[in-house]
Every structure is written in structure tokens, then in C-alpha cells.
């Protein structure tokens, strides 16, 4: 379980790591929109180049991206099979018996695969270079303007940061309980149905018990330190936009503008 790569922070020292989380989140949103512009292969090529450049600057490895992509492969194969049977437009490529594969089925699947790859690249650039805590600070700040229409920006950010904070703990806890129960002869990989159900039960019950215990401890600890939702709070870490953050934002906006032009005005 320690090898989940999607959405994991990688502590490295790079210009991207140092950027303001707000700039990174906004830039990611802009590029995500850009990915969904029907800008054709040239457009995807440009976005791919930009994303690759970001990955290199952030000193992330491409194998890391590939690992994050792997779980999606099954879905893509599944999608291709469906497309192959349903999409009957474009040029017929080949025929086996009564089944003919058309070019659009291949292109549609490829389009989605490329978009997915780009999305994984872009989101990984954000999550791998931004500490979860900085990310929530960024989200909180970006949600601030919506407070006027009663969006509880701080509470949402607090919820996200608590949830994120508990993920590694719960993964560790699960591993610990698996090991403890394996020591008592639980076999998670083999066995009859009833034994398997028992095995899973022997994990879930302790996991729930400890999760509730942790939640209660945390709630008490927060209350003991005077936390009250909705109160005005100051911050230890104040975010500040710098030159490189504006460059990133400008770059992302330019990319989106370029895609819009490629898609609609050419």
C-alpha cells in the first residue's frame, strides 16, 4: 500500500515546489480547461510539451507519472472495446467475420487516452509539488471570494486538510492491523468464502474503532486549543505571490487562449 503514487507529495527542492499554491491551483484549472478544448493533435502536442517541461523543472521522474497512469490502463482497454463495437463512423480499418473496426473507434479512444494522460501529468505536477497543508491554504484563499454567497471557505479547507492528514495514518493503521491479524493466522489471499469474510471483518472492525478513536482525540485536542469554527483566525503562514507565480499563471492563461484560438478561430 505504500506505493500509491497518485496524489502523493514528493519532497524535492525545485522552483515549482516553491511556488505559491494558489498560483499552482489556478494554473492547473486553466490547463485542465485547455485540455478539454477540441484543439486537435497540435494542441495536445503543445500541452504535452508544456506539461513535460513543468515535470522536468519540478524534477519529477516520468516513471512516477507512468505509475500514476497504470491504474487507468484497464479503463482505457475497456473503453476501447466499447468504442470498437459502438462507433461505426470513419474509415473501416479491417474486418473479422461480421465485425468491422472503424477508424473513429481508434481515434476516439486515443483522444481520451491522451486527455487522461495530460490530466494525470498536470494534476501530478500540482499534488507532487505542493504540501497538503499548503494546498488547503491555497484552496481556502481561492474560496474566500465565495464567502459572500455563504460558502464556508475556512471550514471546507479545514475538512480537506483533516481528511488529507488522516490518509497516511489510516494507510499505516491498515497495514499494522493486516500484519497483526496475519500473525493470528488470517490469510487474506487464500481461503474459503466464509474465511475470507471473517478475514475482512477482522480488518474493518479494528480500523473503524481506531478511526473513531482518532477522530475523537483530534476533536478534543482542537477544542482544548480553543478552536471554534467561524471565528476570525490569523495564520502562521501567509501566502505571497512572487514573480515566478505570475509567470506560471500567465503561461497557463496563454496556453488556454492558444487552445481556444486553435479550436474555434483558426
Amino acid at each position, binding site marked *: 500500500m505504500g506505493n500509491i503514487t497518485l496524489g502523493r507529495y514528493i519532497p524535492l527542492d525545485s522552483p515549482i515546489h516553491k511556488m505559491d499554491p494558489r498560483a499552482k491551483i489556478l494554473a492547473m484549472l486553466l490547463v485542465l480547461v485547455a485540455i478539454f478544448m477540441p484543439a486537435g493533435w497540435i494542441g495536445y502536442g503543445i500541452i504535452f510539451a508544456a506539461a513535460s517541461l513543468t515535470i522536468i523543472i519540478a524534477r519529477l521522474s516520468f516513471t512516477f507519472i507512468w505509475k500514476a497512469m497504470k491504474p487507468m490502463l484497464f479503463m482505457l482497454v475497456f473503453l476501447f472495446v466499447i468504442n470498437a463495437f459502438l462507433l461505426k463512423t470513419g474509415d473501416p480499418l479491417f474486418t473479422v467475420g461480421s465485425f468491422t473496426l472503424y477508424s473513429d473507434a481508434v481515434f476516439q479512444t486515443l483522444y481520451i487516452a491522451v486527455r487522461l494522460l495530460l490530466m494525470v501529468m498536470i494534476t501530478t505536477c500540482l499534488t507532487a509539488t505542493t504540501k497538503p497543508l499548503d494546498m488547503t491554504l491555497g484552496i481556502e484563499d481561492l474560496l474566500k471570494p465565495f464567502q459572500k454567497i455563504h460558502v464556508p471557505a475556512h471550514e471546507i479547507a479545514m475538512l480537506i486538510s483533516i481528511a488529507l492528514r488522516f490518509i497516511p495514518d489510516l494507510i499505516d493503521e491498515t497495514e499494522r492491523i493486516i500484519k*497483526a491479524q*496475519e*500473525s*493470528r*493466522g488470517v*490469510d487474506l489471499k487464500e481461503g474459503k468464502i466464509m474465511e475470507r469474510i471473517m478475514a475482512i471483518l477482522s480488518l474493518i472492525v*479494528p480500523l473503524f474503532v481506531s478511526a473513531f478513536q482518532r477522530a475523537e482525540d483530534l476533536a478534543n485536542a482542537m477544542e482544548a486549543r480553543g478552536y471554534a469554527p467561524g471565528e476570525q483566525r490569523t495564520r502562521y503562514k501567509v501566502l505571497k505571490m512572487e514573480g515566478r507565480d505570475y509567470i506560471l499563471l500567465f503561461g497557463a492563461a496563454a496556453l488556454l487562449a492558444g487552445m481556444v484560438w486553435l479550436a474555434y478561430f483558426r
Partner: protein
Amino acid sequence: MPISFEHVGYVYSKGTPYEYQALKDVCLDIEEGKITAVIGQTGSGKSTLVQHLNALLLPESGEIHILDRVIKAGDKPKHLKALRKEVGLVFQFPEYQLFEETVLKDVAFGPKNFGASEEEAKKRAKQALKLVGLSEEYYERSPLELSGGQKRRVAIAGILAMDPSILVLDEPTAGLDPQGTEAMMKLFYELNHTYGKTVLIVTHDMEQVFRYCDRVIVMEDGGVRIHTDKDTFFSDPEACRKMNILPPVLIRMKELLKANGFEVADDIITEDALADCIARQVKKHG
């Protein structure tokens, strides 16, 4: 030797920036029928070491002989159940593994997994609960409503009920009150002396090591720094201090007495004997 390590290495999160070498070239023989203490600072590899003993973690390099099995680096061994029955591992804070509706059922869970019949498992569970000092009135209670110390005992009974020949305990007394700690250590001592079980205890408490253990393993930075018998280990308090280990009270007391002109024999290892020794010398000098 029931368990021996030959040049064992283990790395966590290999191939990621989190990569961490927890064990480095560990060579170690664990003696049968003894109580061995594993000590060392946090992060020295104690917990990683004990998880190799019942093949929860498999070595990245080297090989481990556990009873009649050999586990080599790179192997993907199957049917580890038989092994895990013989090497009972009690984790740190084992009370988190309790899940059944009743104490009796939870303790019987282990033996049932290892193929004992319902009846046999219950019988063994009752014996184990008796050993840890929980009476019949606890059998039908939910393990989740017991106190921390009682939960700990139920969890340990859960391992004892499997009747392992080697018992491995990772900080079994952490968080217990002094009486609970005392009772727990006496239990392990009894299991070793009366039932002949090989016991391995990870601990930070030098008083426990001094009073109950036969052998001492000091882990440092992923390797075994010292492996010797207890008396040799504590005979050089200065060496202990160099490893950031505070010698037990009795040893420190002896040191102070010697420094102040008392004659204290090296074979004095109980408080009573030390008190007699001092009394005699005080009387003599009036």
C-alpha cells in the same frame, strides 16, 4: 538455533524518495529457551527485525532460518501459516487488533485460523485467558468495553492461545501501569521457565531487562551492535552510557557505593543482597 539471521538487509519504500534502509547486514542467532531483550533507540530497526521473525516482512538480502524453514531474499514463500503458528508475534499496542463480539471468541480466533476445532479453540482460549489473569466473568464481555490493560491482556491471550513455541513481543508493557507491567513481565518469565517457550521482548525498560531477561541484543542504526548475556552487558555501566542506555537502578547504586569506598561484589544482583552487603560493612566500621 530456532532462529538465525544471515546477512539480512531490509529497505522500506525501495525506489522512491522515501527509501529507507531499516536493516543492514544483520547476523544473529536467537537462543532456544531463553528470554532475549532487544533494545535500541527509536528507528534503530527493532520493530523491523521482529517482523522478520514470523515472515511478515521478507528479507531484501541475506537469509533467515526460522525453525525448519529457510527464507531467502527474493523468495516468495507460500504457506506461512504453519510458521506463524510457531512464532507468535505480539505487536505494539496489540489491543487494536481486537474485533470479535466477545473476549472468548476473540482469543479463540487465532487457534481457529490455524485449524483447531471450535471446541479445541475455546478450550485453548480459556487456558490462555487464565494465564493472563482474566477470570470467567470476562468471557462473554465485549473486548471493546474493557480497560486498556485488560484489552492488552486479551490481545496477548489471543497469541498465547495459538500455543507458539517462540513468543515475540514488541514493547508489550508500553502504556501499562507499574502493577500491570510487573504482572505482564512475570507472565513472560513463567511462560519461559514453566512452559519452556523461547521469548523475545523489545523494550526500553532496563529494569525489566535486568530482572527478567537472559540475553541482550542492542540494535543501532539498522545493525546489531551487541549481542551478549545480561550479566556481561550490565557489568560495564560506562559502555551502556556510551550507547545512551541508562543502567538499572541497582547497577547505578553499586557504582555509587564503590565510588564512595564500599566493597561490592560483582555477583550481587538483587536489592536484598546489596542491602545485606552494605549492612555488614556499616556494622564493621561502626
